[in-house]
């Protein structure tokens, strides 16, 4: 089953995304897993709004949630140029504890079971457990 949400590139869209994902997945995964999914989805949608679409109001962010037997797959796509690369797991583990930025992508690498970059689309995979 696949569900989609399209939002404007403004930070107030984040509350809508949060509530939508929470409603979709509350009965599908445990509470800890849901908290992880909500955090990483928010981090990636924030990146899409701020850095991908640079808050251009005519540009959209599309979030697709696929609920499968063993996995939750979340695709987040913006209209920007896309990231060049993702941090490796090793780089993500080497968090600068007191850095004040650059943490979102590293958290995504650490807290997903798998993460893929396809230009301006990022795919997050979480085991349902």
């Amino acid at each position: 089953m696949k569900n989609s949400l399209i939002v404007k590139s403004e930070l107030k869209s984040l509350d809508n995304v949060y509530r939508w994902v929470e409603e979709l997945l509350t009965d599908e995964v445990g509470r800890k897993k849901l908290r992880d999914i909500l955090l990483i989805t928010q981090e990636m949608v924030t990146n899409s709004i701020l850095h991908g679409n640079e808050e251009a109001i005519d540009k959209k962010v599309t979030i697709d949630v696929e609920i499968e037997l063993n996995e939750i797959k979340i695709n987040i796509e913006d209209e920007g140029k896309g990231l060049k690369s993702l941090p490796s797991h090793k780089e993500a583990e080497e968090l600068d504890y007191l850095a004040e930025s650059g943490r979102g992508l590293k958290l995504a690498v650490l807290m997903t079971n798998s993460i893929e970059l396809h230009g301006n689309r990022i795919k997050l995979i979480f085991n349902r457990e």
Partner: protein
Amino acid sequence: MNIDVERVDSIKKITLNVKKFDVANMQEIKKNIQAEVEADASDILMDLSKVSFVDSSGLSVIISIFKQLKSSNHQLKLCGLQEQPMELLEITQLHKIFTIIDSCNK
């Protein structure tokens, strides 16, 4: 107002009045807390008991206040952490650096 401020002995207690402390409200909360820090240097107890969700931007504000206080030999203590904010501190290893206390009433 997204924060409440209360003086308890020599410590200033700042309570965050938001459920989500994130990129959407972090600038305003940061500005309000920094104004408190600059107005009257003291140790700060940050009461997060109303906050059920913190993202990396909210976390960056806590780090910034921690550094600001440390540079003037003051301390930041966090209290009332719900599950998600505590998990975020653990995965970023910041639970080893910050002083975290259970009760906000001490």
